[in-house]
């Protein structure tokens, strides 16, 4: 964790006699210490026990879902899967700050955010099970599907936000990116454009400190990722990404500002990827077990639980009930996922264009016949 008082980034090389023409500061937001004790006054929404508990439930559900999804993958019933283990506060913190009519542009790791937004677990599984139908969800109709080419959804977010602004809709686009994604040129281009047009978009960086095996210090020399916004002329803030109050509060502020026409923001949520990159990865090849163990101490779920226990009379019974409920919901969804109808080969032509050009009819027929052969 960055020591809260250290002001880094000062240019030691510049001629100190030269006049300063622009100054920038990156601030850091945190409310809870790793044990759930408070560092400062909580934001207003934290006063509502029910909403805090629902965030807790959202994180628990994501974790239960991740666990079972990995088990499905290990037993050959799901494709490559990326968990949000340890990063649940990021996805849930931001998703819970959005309104239904806002649009989410997620990365492949943001299952937890989709769940919160109302995408069903069976749809998510269907996608990771290798079936396009999973992205034709019944949940938030205008949300984007998982983006796999890292960072490439950032320009879409700018486009969506432009549409909102153009139509004078009080809606906000929220784009979730990884720390690795901040190195992509398209992300820089999108942020720069969003700055020029003061678009209603929030870029949320899940800084889990690894991009597969590449640690943050090989990714960038920037002391914070929040400062990437300075290049685009708007503000960036760092938050403790394991503190759901901090993530939610920062997201709420940024989304409200965007909605009010005050332009884009960047939020860097510093957390840690407690699991492998995906089920196709073996992180023990490139990072020591001790490092991971250290970071378990900052687990966002344990932290919120600590808070609930000490501040909200959280009972064992409540705890167990939520766990059981999550388990049960996931199991039921898995059953539905496994029962999904097979997909016909020729269906790969069905949404290629709004109407299939006649020239491809023969190919479609070939695919159909091949299946029957």
């Amino acid at each position, binding site marked *: 964790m960055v020591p809260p008082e250290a002001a880094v980034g000062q240019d030691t090389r510049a001629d100190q006699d030269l006049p300063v023409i622009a100054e920038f500061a990156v601030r850091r937001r945190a409310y809870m210490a790793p044990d759930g004790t408070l560092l400062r006054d909580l934001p207003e929404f934290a006063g509502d026990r029910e909403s805090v508990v629902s965030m807790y439930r959202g994180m628990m559900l994501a974790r239960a879902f991740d666990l079972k999804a990995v088990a499905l993958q290990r037993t050959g019933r799901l494709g490559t899967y990326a968990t949000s283990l340890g990063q649940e506060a990021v996805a849930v913190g931001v998703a819970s700050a959005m309104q239904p009519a806002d649009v989410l542009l997620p990365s492949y790791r943001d299952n937890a955010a989709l769940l919160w937004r109302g995408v069903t677990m069976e749809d998510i599984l269907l996608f990771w099970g290798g079936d396009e139908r999973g992205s034709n969800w019944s949940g938030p109709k205008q949300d984007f599907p998982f983006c796999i080419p890292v960072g490439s959804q950032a320009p879409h977010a700018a486009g*969506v936000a432009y*549409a909102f602004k153009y139509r004078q809709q009080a809606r906000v686009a929220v784009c979730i990116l990884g720390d690795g994604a901040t190195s992509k040129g*398209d992300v820089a*281009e999108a942020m720069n454009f969003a700055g*020029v047009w003061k678009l209603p978009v929030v870029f949320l960086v899940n800084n889990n400190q690894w991009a597969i095996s590449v640690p943050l210090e090989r990714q960038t020399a920037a002391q914070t990722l929040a400062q990437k916004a300075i290049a685009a002329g708007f503000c960036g803030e760092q938050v403790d990404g394991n503190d759901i109050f901090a993530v939610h509060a920062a997201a709420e502020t940024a989304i409200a500002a965007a909605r009010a026409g005050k332009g884009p923001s960047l939020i860097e949520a510093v957390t840690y990827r407690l699991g492998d990159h995906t089920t196709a990865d073996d992180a023990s090849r490139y990072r020591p077990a001790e490092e991971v163990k250290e970071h378990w101490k900052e687990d966002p779920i344990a932290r919120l639980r600590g808070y609930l226990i000490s501040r909200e009379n959280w009972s064992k019974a409540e705890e167990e009930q939520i766990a059981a409920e999550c388990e049960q919901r996931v199991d039921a969804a898995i059953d539905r996922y496994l029962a999904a109808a097979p997909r016909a080969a020729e269906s790969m032509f069905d949404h290629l264009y709004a109407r299939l*050009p006649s020239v491809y009819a023969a190919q479609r027929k070939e695919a159909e016949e091949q299946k029957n052969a």
Partner: protein
Amino acid sequence: MPELTLVDAVNLALARALADDPDVVVFGEDVGVNGGVFRVTAGLQKRFGVERVFDTPLSEALISGLCVGMAAQGLRPVGEIQFMGFLYPCIDQLVNHASRLRNRTQGRLSCPMVLRTPHGAGIRAPEHHSEATEAMLAHIPGLRVVIPSAPERAYGLLLAAIRDPDPVVFLEPTRIYRAVKGEVEDNGEAMPLDVAFVIREGRDVTLVSWGAMVKDTLEAADELAGDGIDAEVIDLATLKPYDEQTIVNSVAKTGRCVIVHEAARTGGFGAEIAALVAERALLSLLAPVARVTGYDTVIPLPRLERQYIPSVARVVAAARKTCKFPD
């Protein structure tokens, strides 16, 4: 009907689309106050406002990605890439997103966007301003690739592209931006996409071409007529998906096929046409299929560009040879 240049026809179609549909927005580098480096968007910002016709920062990947985001929201974005040589950073968005959004979401989201860009050499422009790499785009499933060869088709095809529910790359041949004029009525009528135009009928040989080369191909047909060779000329117009049947029918009739394009030969879109003919019209063929194309070199700077672009003489020679075959 007024006689318009291709530049004016594109401008007219854009103005029409902007006037008809509030979802249409036009943007790119210098398309606003400046009206585009070729003046294609001249007057549009003034008429439709800065929110509908605007300059972007110098970011091509962004321009294509913006289109995807806007289109997913139901706008009808028309992005401009200033020259085809600067379109390459858009390929990621075209392949990975624009062409797939509908399929990926099984129709939940779609991508009705147009990306316009000037195409081809022949105007003595600097390096990178003379690209003709349509074949790279025409290989992308889910995309449409359209290139007009005359003002009248530029107007109708661009309207079709803007109204099409799927992503379209619209290539505008710079060499004929102002070199040809045609009668264009501003009737708001779109032309069909995925249809090839038989713009000259003939019995002896089928000449297939697109973009600026159509003009040269027509000239070649005139010259061939002097030899008593009656050439049929097809303007492919839409390269993806393309109209196979019109070509097959023509070759079935003529028995000979010469394909003319400006792009480098190897892996150019002419290969696709030749392959089609070899597959579906083999028994009609009286002579080998010929391709008259740019060389497999980097398109040279202006001093040699005319030597690079297939000349009318090369087209005529290839057609003559094809017609004389097996002599």
